[in-house]
């Protein structure tokens, strides 16, 4: 078998070609990655198959040749200058040197003339789909050898397997990147939608001070909690609610609820009547009821050194009044969830708040954070609130924030109103 010189070096690639080739090397992101079983198996197989001591998967970098796998050679990289792989990647096909000591292409190469004593080299470029040679699969011996045409084909097939592995890794990385991108989009969408369901800023109401919090359990889903502060002729109405479910459908219901309440508040209706209207609007809007919400609605009318409040509940935890003296009491009469069936009625409960008193409205996620909806968790909540009696609305909210753990199952919202 004569030495195959079909692989005479072609003209030197231009600098811009080499820049593009290096960009391809970067794209596959394989340089300096840890050893990988798939490539180890291929070089081991190549060494056995061709009965050579050394088989290498190399990647040609700017100024070095890095070995992704190096069977039979305890070296991880060499300089690019003497590397035969650097010559091999200039070819379109296999580059075979059967006796390097006499081959004019290699006889002065330090790897050949020097201590290493390389005599046989056969390398096949690892060519990408778009035609860039990243490196080689090569076999090396310290004895001269002949390589039959059939063996060259086998080496090319093995190089194809190496390339398939590299393509597989590239596409896996792309999937991960796409996945991350689409998750980011979902989070952005959820946040934008969420923002549209909450007041951008709370109105200023004479004689009242507000603080609000919203802790979202899942960043990529729209939360089901909402709150609102609606100015009225006599003061304001404050609302907190929890729409059952998450995501787009829940968000649509939240929007319906928020604006129905706002519209109903234009009438001089009591909270119970406003909730009855909301209930019927939702029950009729969704023919096959799938969704409902719970809500607490408080009408607040500031008075001299205090305020009168009327509260109505629809399946929602009772708001809590924190007196400036430290006493804590619940307000509201239990009534059904809103929107599941029409014709449900609700009940008003009224109270007088004094200067420095605080009304705390919250969603059931707060109770779940404390440990449940039982007397014990109510006691914890009351004790915690009692410890910030006389504080500002923000101070009360800050204290409640401390109750929220890391492993939230549900959103938590609260709205604090303090009487100035």
């Amino acid at each position, binding site marked *: 078998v004569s030495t195959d010189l079909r692989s005479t070096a072609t003209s030197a690639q231009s600098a811009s070609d080499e820049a593009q080739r290096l960009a391809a090397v970067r794209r596959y992101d394989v340089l300096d990655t840890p050893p990988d079983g798939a490539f180890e198996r291929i070089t081991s197989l190549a060494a056995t198959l061709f009965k050579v001591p050394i088989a290498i998967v190399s990647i040609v970098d700017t100024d070095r040749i890095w070995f992704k796998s190096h069977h039979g050679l305890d070296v991880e990289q060499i300089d690019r200058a003497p590397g035969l792989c650097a010559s091999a990647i200039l070819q379109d096909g296999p580059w075979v040197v059967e006796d390097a000591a006499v081959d004019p292409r290699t006889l002065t190469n330090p790897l050949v003339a020097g201590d290493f004593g390389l005599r046989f080299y056969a390398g096949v470029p690892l060519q990408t789909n778009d035609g860039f040679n990243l490196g080689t699969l090569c076999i090396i011996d310290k004895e001269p050898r002949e390589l039959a045409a059939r063996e060259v084909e086998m080496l090319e097939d093995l190089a194809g397997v190496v390339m398939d592995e590299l393509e597989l890794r590239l596409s896996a990385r792309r999937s991960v990147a796409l996945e991350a991108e689409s998750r980011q989009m979902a989070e952005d969408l959820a946040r934008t939608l969420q923002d549209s369901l909450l007041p951008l800023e709370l109105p200023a109401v004479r004689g009242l001070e507000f603080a609000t919090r919203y802790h979202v359990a899942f960043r990529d889903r729209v939360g089901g909690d909402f709150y609102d502060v609606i100015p009225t002729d006599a003061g304001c109405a404050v609302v907190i609610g*929890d729409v059952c*479910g998450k995501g787009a459908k829940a968000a649509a219901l939240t929007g319906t609820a928020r604006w129905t309440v706002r519209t109903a508040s234009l009438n001089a209706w009591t909270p119970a009547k406003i909730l009855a209207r909301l209930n019927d609007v939702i029950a009729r809007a969704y023919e096959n*009821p799938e969704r409902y919400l719970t809500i607490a609605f408080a009408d607040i009318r500031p008075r001299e050194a205090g305020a009168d409040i009327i509260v109505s509940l629809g399946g929602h935890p009772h708001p809590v009044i924190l007196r400036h003296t430290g006493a804590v009491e619940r307000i509201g009469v*239990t009534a*059904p*969830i809103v929107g599941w069936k029409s014709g449900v009625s609700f009940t008003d409960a009224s109270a007088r708040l004094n200067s420095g008193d605080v009304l705390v409205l919250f969603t059931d996620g707060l109770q779940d954070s404390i440990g*449940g909806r039982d007397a014990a968790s109510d006691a914890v909540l009351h004790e915690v609130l009692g410890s910030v009696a006389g504080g500002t609305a923000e101070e009360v909210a800050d204290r409640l924030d401390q109750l929220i753990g890391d492993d939230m*199952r*549900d959103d938590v919202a609260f709205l604090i109103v303090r009487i100035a």
Partner: protein
Amino acid sequence: VSDGELSLDATTADSICRVAVAGDVDLLTAPRLPEEIAAVLSKNGIQGVVLDLADVSFMDSSGLRALLQAQELTKERGTTFALSVPPGQVARLLELAGVADWFDYE
């Protein structure tokens, strides 16, 4: 504080299917409840469904919706539907949501 997975165990006697619910019924697991009821109702000869909630370790508002949906499904089929609820977290959930009297009890 999670006691873990939801498990549903249906047994039928005298045309009444009893579904024992155990574990957590929350946002992630709740949809399985109406699915199970739909599967139960697809069998011939079922005249009533009882949901036994004695071993539920946690239930939130998603679980309440699942109960309401299960009730709707049975209503559509003309099947009776009852809950078995011992005093505890689930009973309080139904009470506070104002829907305790929307259900029949065993």
